[in-house]
């Protein structure tokens, strides 16, 4: 039963990371590609870590502090990932990269 929960978390996480990679290839320009990677990577990595956390909590319950460290990892990823996305966006916008509009050619 426990393995099922862990595998579900890991599979969902890998699914979202996979979707992020596909989005990076399919979307037409820089800004829309950041939509795919910035969001999917955050939740994908968080779900993978959550799966590891549940696994560790039940199989190595003599060292529960590792779970706290994994939680901190999730927290910091949730703070730093949108910030990094924002920095990339702003850099692109300031250098004058034109956003793709509906009907434009694919770049």
């Amino acid at each position, binding site marked *: 039963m426990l393995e099922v929960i862990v595998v579900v978390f890991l599979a969902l996480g890998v699914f979202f990371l996979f979707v*992020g990679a596909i*989005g990076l290839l399919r979307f037409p320009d820089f*800004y829309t590609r950041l939509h795919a990677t910035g*969001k*999917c990577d*955050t939740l994908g990595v968080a779900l993978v870590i959550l799966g590891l956390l549940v696994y560790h909590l039940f199989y190595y319950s003599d060292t529960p502090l590792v779970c706290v460290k994994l939680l901190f990892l999730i927290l910091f990823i949730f703070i730093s990932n949108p910030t990094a996305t924002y920095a990339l966006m702003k850099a692109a916008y300031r250098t004058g990269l034109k956003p793709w509009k509906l009907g434009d050619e694919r770049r």
Partner: protein
Amino acid sequence: MIENEGKGFRILVTFCVMFLFWLLLSGIFDALHLTAGVICSLIVAVISYDLLVVGKRNKTLVRSFRLLLYIPWELWQIVLANIDVAYRVLHPKMPIDPRIIEFDTSLRSDFALVTLANSITLTPGTITIGVRDGRFWVHAVAKEPAEALTVDGTMQQKVADVYMEW
């Protein structure tokens, strides 16, 4: 000296947070490690007390509590955002219609602006490009997420509630 009001309290709060962080990361509870932790937390607290706790003491606790209530809603929005992106990526016709929108908020404090900017980035279909004096530039991947920000303004309201800036 309004700036130094509650300085001791702010150092104390920073110290407690830092020492808790030390305890959780080290996991060793003998005298040597605890002493080292106290000394390091004290140094960090004295140097950077004004970074962690900003503002008056009576509001800080209420704000932290309200922020805790805001986080679950935000987590749910992140899940929705990912499902939204997954749908747009995997749909054969790729239903996107990107646009850049601008809007004003009444928020002014740094913490509130950062919270709103990061929240916008993590919620469905929108990414913050820039912030200046409460004015936001946002890249939206389609029409509906753009209107959720400009017309409804649910998120602005929620962040304003958390930081009590109406």
